[in-house]
């Protein structure tokens, strides 16, 4: 992870976490969710449709669009009621 300039988004080096349900070039963008105790990083969002963690190479902000290739779902990042970032499905 690189330190950001003020207001800039942090950037993340994505490693392969062994998620093999999508073609090889895209595997580093996803990881399995370990259940309720799993803490998401600032560059990660949980796909509400198939419960896979979608990872970005940069810190997520509300309005960002993500694609869950495991279930073919487009997502948008929003600030949830708790103040934490959540992914909502875009139909």
């Amino acid at each position, binding site marked *: 992870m690189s330190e950001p300039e003020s207001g800039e988004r942090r950037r993340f080096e994505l490693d392969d976490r062994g998620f*093999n*349900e*999508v*073609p090889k070039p895209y595997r580093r963008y996803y990881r399995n969710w370990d*259940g309720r105790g799993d803490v998401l990083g600032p560059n990660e969002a949980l796909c509400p449709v198939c419960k896979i963690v979608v990872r970005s190479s940069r810190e997520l902000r509300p309005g960002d669009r993500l694609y*869950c*290739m495991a279930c073919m779902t487009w997502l948008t990042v929003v600030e949830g009621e708790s103040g934490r970032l959540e992914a909502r*499905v875009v*139909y």
Partner: protein
Amino acid sequence: MADFLSAYSVQQWLESAPQGYLKETEFGHAPGEREPDLLLSDKVLNEQAIRTTVQLVVGERCALAASSGLINAAPDDGSKRFLATQTLDEARHVEIFTQRLYELGVSQAELENVLEAHANPNLVKFAEVLLEKVDKKDFVAGVVGQNIVLEGMAFNVFEMLKAANDELNPKFAHTLSGTIADERRHVGFGENRIGSLIRENPERKPDVERLQKEMSYYMLATFADTFRDRSVHEEMARLRGASEGGSAQWQGVNLNELGPEQMEAILADTVLKEFKLRLERIGIEYQTPARP
């Protein structure tokens, strides 16, 4: 064509499934993996494993008939191609769970009789209702029934079954793992396809709600029967004893420490809760199914 399918292709399916998580598997698991000896030698445990697997075969045969039947009912090319890959997924599921029955000692000659003897009547009734819709080429009813009701609920149950078998029966857990990966695409298709339909045609909402109400009862009844059956838990307890304990973590709880009633409560808190959330996301209010 629905926008969500624009990034989907048969090529992507090939690279994800046959050339990805299914590469070098045999009937869904690593070559050489076997059922635990106790499951083959103990008559009671063997019977329970057969009964559980029969429900999987019956459910997957229904999904195979529905997904193949829906190809010609689909209104766009993207959905047709997706359903073609789903058809192959479902055929594979029928084959791997049937193969498990053979490995549990069921002969090919006995297969149909064993399926008939152990199939849950609620699951059989669900299949009849769903396939009647498919026969009428009712695409929306077919997708709601198969990809939202059947697979939306089965997805959570498969995950729970896998967690319960991770340590006790790695062969079966690995078989389930590939099935769960397939199910992610199937539930994604159902939710996105029906979600788009409701968004573009809000007047279809009452129709979809009626279909959900009509078809949910038999699936919920099937799961309730399965988890109410104490002998399933006795089977798991015996296996756990044989494998010197272990932890089966799922949704933050250790399944090994739960009794049947607690397991049923966890299931209601997950399967039904997740199902209601799935419906809520696509703009559908959950309708408590009436007993037919």
